């Protein structure tokens, strides 16, 4: 996999922060999505064909991706193109605001592109139709094969401008791809764009792999592999494909995650049957023991400032969530509700912890404040777990398994996402069955 966007240059045409009337409030479930018109990007007639990319259709294809991104947020309602009242190139120069308002659009995205000399030049504008003014505009140059990422970056910029929050479209999801019958599953590491495009497999399926997680720069992945039937935490460089086992522990290591600075891996190590939490410094290879308790301590996750660790433990009898300082001191139980709690994951914004809850045979994904207060259950199902945060802390991705029949028939594993408002639950498109999703940070940051 090549490094994307080496040639990315961004410059602002204009940036108008003042008195825009439209904005999207994403702190509540949005039952009234903002009507937005995404005009196809105008393809400059000086464009030439480039390596099998359908240049003539590029303007339409980019705007379709933007539309789908917006629709999937649940916050926007992209309008049908048949109703559009102006040609893309003319609208991009200066829309007839009153005409667009007639089709009930409140915001309009226009743009144009040129493919020439092996480069893709794109510019777009976001218009506030109510206030009849330009809200933001951006132009950039990249290699034509990056055209999907261009669509995602434009989506991010518009989302940011309209919601005041960072976007999450130019991101990827790493997950475990599953196939085969339930009692003989073949599992591989899969990676795809956030919208399900560009699926690639990073392992062959010869050995069981579980729980992949990105490092902060999205170049590395840590995961559990049963290579040679020895379950150990591994490190994989996505670009080079180089793999190595992390640390020489005399037993199973599992449940790995990176520290927020990417310098350490935190994980569980099972010694004589008892699982405790350890960190390993990737540069010095120094191993530190963080918990020392006769109970199961696992699923550790750092706070984004690196000062705290959330984990689950059954030291009180059943699985509950605890928080401690990153040196292992000050352990405090934070869940006291009915049921058992696991897989705590600290939000990238630092304000919430997502978790899995099991109660009366039902599985819930929920969020709570980092002291355990304000618990909100977002979704209930037969089986679901392992939430992972979108980089802006607004959306969770997790996996679900269905109830199987007496021979294992009817079993499936799929990825889902939900807003932390509890709205907009959505199944993600994957080429195969899938589990253990982990969301990357923004690729272009």
């Amino acid at each position, binding site marked *: 996999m090549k490094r994307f966007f080496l040639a990315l240059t961004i410059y602002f045409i204009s940036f108008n922060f003042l008195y825009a009337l439209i904005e999207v409030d994403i702190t509540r479930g949005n039952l009234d999505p903002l009507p937005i018109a995404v005009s196809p990007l105008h393809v400059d007639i000086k464009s030439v064909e480039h390596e099998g990319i359908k240049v003539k259709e590029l303007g339409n294809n980019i705007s379709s991706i933007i539309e789908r991104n917006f629709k999937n947020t649940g916050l926007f309602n992209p309008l049908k193109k048949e109703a559009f009242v102006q040609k893309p190139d003319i609208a991009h120069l200066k829309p007839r605001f009153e005409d667009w308002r007639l089709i009930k659009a409140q915001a309009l995205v226009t743009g144009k592109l040129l493919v020439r000399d092996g480069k893709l030049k794109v510019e777009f504008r976001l218009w506030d139709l109510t206030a009849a003014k330009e809200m933001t505009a951006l132009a950039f140059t990249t290699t034509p094969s990056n055209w999907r990422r261009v669509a995602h970056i434009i989506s991010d910029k518009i989302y940011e401008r309209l919601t005041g929050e960072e976007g999450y479209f130019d991101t990827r999801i790493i997950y475990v791809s599953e196939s085969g019958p*339930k009692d003989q599953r073949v599992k591989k590491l899969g990676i795809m764009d956030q919208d399900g495009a560009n699926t690639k497999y990073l392992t062959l399926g010869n050995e*069981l792999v579980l729980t992949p997680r990105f490092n902060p720069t999205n170049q590395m992945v840590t995961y559990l592999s049963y290579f040679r039937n020895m*379950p150990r935490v591994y490190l994989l460089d996505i670009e080079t494909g180089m793999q190595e086992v992390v640390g020489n522990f005399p037993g199973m290591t599992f449940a790995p995650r990176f520290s927020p600075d990417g310098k350490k891996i935190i994980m569980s190590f099972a010694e004589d*049957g008892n699982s405790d939490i350890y960190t390993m410094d990737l540069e010095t290879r120094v191993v530190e023991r963080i918990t020392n308790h006769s109970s199961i301590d696992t699923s550790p996750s750092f706070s984004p400032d690196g000062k705290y660790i959330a984990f689950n433990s*059954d030291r009180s009898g059943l699985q509950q969530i605890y928080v401690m300082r990153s040196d292992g001191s000050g352990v405090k139980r934070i869940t006291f509700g009915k049921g058992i709690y696991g897989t705590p994951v600290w939000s990238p914004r630092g304000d919430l912890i997502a978790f899995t809850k099991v109660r009366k045979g039902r599985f819930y994904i929920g969020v709570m404040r980092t002291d355990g207060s304000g618990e909100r259950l977002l979704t209930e199902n037969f089986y679901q777990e392992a939430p992972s945060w979108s980089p802006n802390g607004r959306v969770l991705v997790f996996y679900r398994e269905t109830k*199987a029949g007496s021979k294992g028939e009817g079993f499936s594993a799929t990825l889902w996402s939900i807003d932390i408002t509890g709205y907009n639950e959505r199944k993600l498109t994957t080429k195969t069955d899938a589990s*253990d999703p982990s969301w990357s940070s923004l690729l272009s940051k």
Partner: protein
Amino acid sequence: MTFNTNLKNIFLVVFTTLILSACATAKKSGDMDGDVYTGKETVKYLASGVPDRVFFATNKSSLTTASRATLRKQATYLRKNKKLNVTIEGHADERGTREYNLALGERRANAAKDYLMTYGISGKRISTISYGKEKPVNPASSTLAWSQNRRSVTVKVN
């Protein structure tokens, strides 16, 4: 009238007896003690009369009386076959989070290993591995399947 009342009483008695006996049969024939599986389905044998696996209660890794009896048979067998090494595989049902289940499987495998060691089998002859919920022996999503999947299995290595 008298006849009718008597008849009613008889019916009541018969009906109650039926309910009671139904309860009794359900408890005995379910191959379960609490939620620990006690049946023979899925069980294999290291040798004649030496079952290869023991079963656990939900979220537990403690050995039941029946499990200890099975493991004593395994210990006797291993004492007789001094060159034999084994791996104990620990498993969990699908009703927990993946990572916790990996830890739970490890604990179950080690509970069986520790018991074999107290009966004189060297720890060097026994390795353990946890598969968590990854390798169900019964792929169904039912109480019975889950009880069969909460297990540790002793497997010959050589």
